């Protein structure tokens, strides 16, 4: 019964995709990008940042590329994988899109993967960060990051910088476990010791008991991964419980100090060291212009989700230029492989083997800016051209 259903669905999609090729005579001069993002729900800030960044890019670079007009169709999946799948089906079958893009969380990106394979269209992942995603379809290309990239780097950095004992606090879901395992692997290989390991439920109302446990374990630092939205709550309770005064530092991948929320976290967050791909304070001229333009249009600071969206749409534009407007999915993915460019976050490229992003990972410390008095992640060390170590180790 189940197999039959899957088969007929696959057949229907294949048939419709075939029809789409015949019926799209008029659609020849437009390229449609189906953007599936969480625009409502707990992950909505991710969706909004990516959408904003894409609007900004299209304002700056025009909406035609290689003689074709680019049309963006946004669908809200509220970060629920079932909805992602439905949205992707509608976009592919009814709207006949040439790309699907976005994907706020890992399960959403995975839910759309088989559809991208069947319909042979590129799936551009602009947010979700679990390593396995790009292995699930040869049509997936990622412009965001993997948690392995930042977690291994912070593990190395901590081991090299006199941090001996670390307690970990990570959210109990796939990205959290990725962050924890990759950190642990590199940190212990560097001679460090993980003295306490706590996984907190994703929907966690109160960090107090977990933090008390951290405090009693008396580590040099706590390694933290919580989804971006929970960072503020975590930092507040960290300070309330006096862990900062007890000399316990916070380290982690940069999600906890996302630019989006950082400025509201209060002084307790100052001194937090994270490894991440992007800071709004990245000192390149390109980034200064990007931040200024984004702030002007949307009255908020761009975070790493915004820059991933900005690079994602850039990748789509450049791939279309390279194929001269040919929208064949396989050719587009081929065109994307190995592509290199300068992003507001620094130099990046697409790994031709894994279709995952290669980028610099920066070690940053939170400090108050002398010019505008706001809190920023200030970069002080660079690990250049970091591949996704989650895959290369295999």
């Amino acid at each position, binding site marked *: 019964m189940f197999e039959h259903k899957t088969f007929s669905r696959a057949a229907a999609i294949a048939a419709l995709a075939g029809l789409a090729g015949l019926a799209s005579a008029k659609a020849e001069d437009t390229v449609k990008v189906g953007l599936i993002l969480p625009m*409502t*729900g*707990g992950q*909505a*800030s991710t969706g909004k940042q990516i959408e904003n960044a894409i609007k900004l890019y299209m304002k700056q670079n025009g909406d035609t590329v290689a003689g074709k007009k680019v049309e963006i169709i946004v669908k809200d999946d509220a970060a629920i994988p079932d909805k992602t799948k439905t949205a992707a089906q509608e976009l592919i079958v009814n709207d006949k899109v040439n790309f699907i893009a976005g994907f706020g969380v890992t399960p959403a990106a995975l839910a759309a993967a088989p559809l991208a394979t069947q319909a042979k269209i590129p799936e551009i992942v602009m947010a979700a960060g679990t390593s396995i995603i790009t292995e699930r379809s040869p049509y997936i290309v990622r412009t965001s990051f993997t948690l392995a990239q930042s977690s291994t780097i912070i593990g190395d950095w901590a081991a090299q910088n006199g941090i001996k004992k670390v307690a970990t606090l990570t959210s109990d879901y796939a990205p959290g476990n990725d962050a924890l395992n990759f950190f642990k692997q590199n940190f212990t290989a560097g001679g460090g010791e993980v003295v306490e390991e*706590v*996984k*907190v*439920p994703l*929907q*966690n*109302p*109160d960090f*107090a*008991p*977990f933090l*008390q*446990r951290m405090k*009693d374990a008396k580590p040099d630092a706590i390694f933290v991964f919580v989804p971006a*939205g*929970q960072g*503020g*709550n975590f930092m*507040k*309770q960290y*300070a*309330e*419980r*006096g862990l900062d005064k007890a000399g316990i530092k916070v380290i982690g991948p940069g999600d906890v100090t996302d630019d*989006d*929320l950082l400025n*509201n976290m209060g002084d307790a967050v100052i001194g937090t060291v994270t490894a991440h791909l992007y800071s709004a304070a990245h000192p390149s001229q390109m980034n200064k212009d990007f931040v200024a333009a984004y702030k002007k249009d949307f009255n908020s600071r761009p975070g790493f989700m915004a820059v991933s969206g900005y690079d994602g749409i850039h990748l789509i534009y450049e791939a279309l230029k390279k194929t001269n407007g040919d929208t064949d999915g396989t050719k587009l993915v081929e065109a994307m492989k190995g592509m290199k460019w300068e992003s507001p976050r620094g130099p990046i490229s697409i790994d031709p083997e894994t279709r995952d992003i290669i980028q610099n990972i920066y070690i940053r410390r939170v400090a108050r800016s002398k010019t505008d008095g706001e809190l920023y992640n200030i970069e002080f060390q660079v690990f250049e051209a970091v591949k996704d170590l989650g895959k290369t180790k295999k």
Partner: protein
Amino acid sequence: MTSILTNLFDGVAYGMLLFVLACGLAVTLGLMNFVNLAHGAFAMAGGYVCMLLVNQHGWPFFAALPLAFVSSALIGIVLERTLYRHLYARSHLDQVLFTIGLTFMSVAAVDYIQGSSRVFINLPAALQGQFDLFGVGIGRYRLMIIVICGLLTIGLQMVLAKTRFGSRLRAAVDDPRAASGLGINVPQVFAFTFAFGCGLAGLGGALSAEILGLDPYFPLKFMIYFLIVVTVGGSSSITGPFLASLLLGIGDVAGKYYVPKMGPFVIYTMMIVILIWRPNGLFGRTAAR
């Protein structure tokens, strides 16, 4: 040893907070026999009012707290008079459908007006941090919660047991027909009680922003906790929910501290065990009304 006491303190604070948030629900569900799943929406309203007054209009935190109570109570009384009262005589399923709809509307409305990201209330410096009392870490904010909620509980118990209004309410609940025959204006008593419960939720919402986090999904995220408090405590008095809140608060904190792997399930395990032992809750009446 000291960490046991710190955990106990945290647990009591968490429990007290749960009580203030949920006791309005115990009143509507237990005393008025109305299933109000939108209870969390009133808590959220109070939280956002407090946040706007403090962060955007520069009100002191302690002045904004009563306003959170008043605004939620006002919203409560308006909705009670216009919408809720038509549903008192309807089946529980109708009430559930109506109030869950109201909850979704409140979530969407707050998301639209305030955005979906989590908000914080700027606290005065006096409420931040921890101090040591004989080696036991006492969080200032949590201490304040215990004081406020403790006074409220005593006050509530006094009002219910000792005042004329309290006896009218109890009479109205026990036998509405006989009560109105004695000249008690039953709908008015219920409206007032409902508004008061909403006000308490509003106050709880404002207090919980710091600890539980405040965002537009608050009413959905914490609905389950309110319901656990009411089911475990039984809904025929306020002593039941009060003790249940404390028990669950302490159990939850201790569970997360001592068995972090099992932490999130402790609260549910406790609920299941208690309900098997006493299906009507710790202090429930044997005959369900």
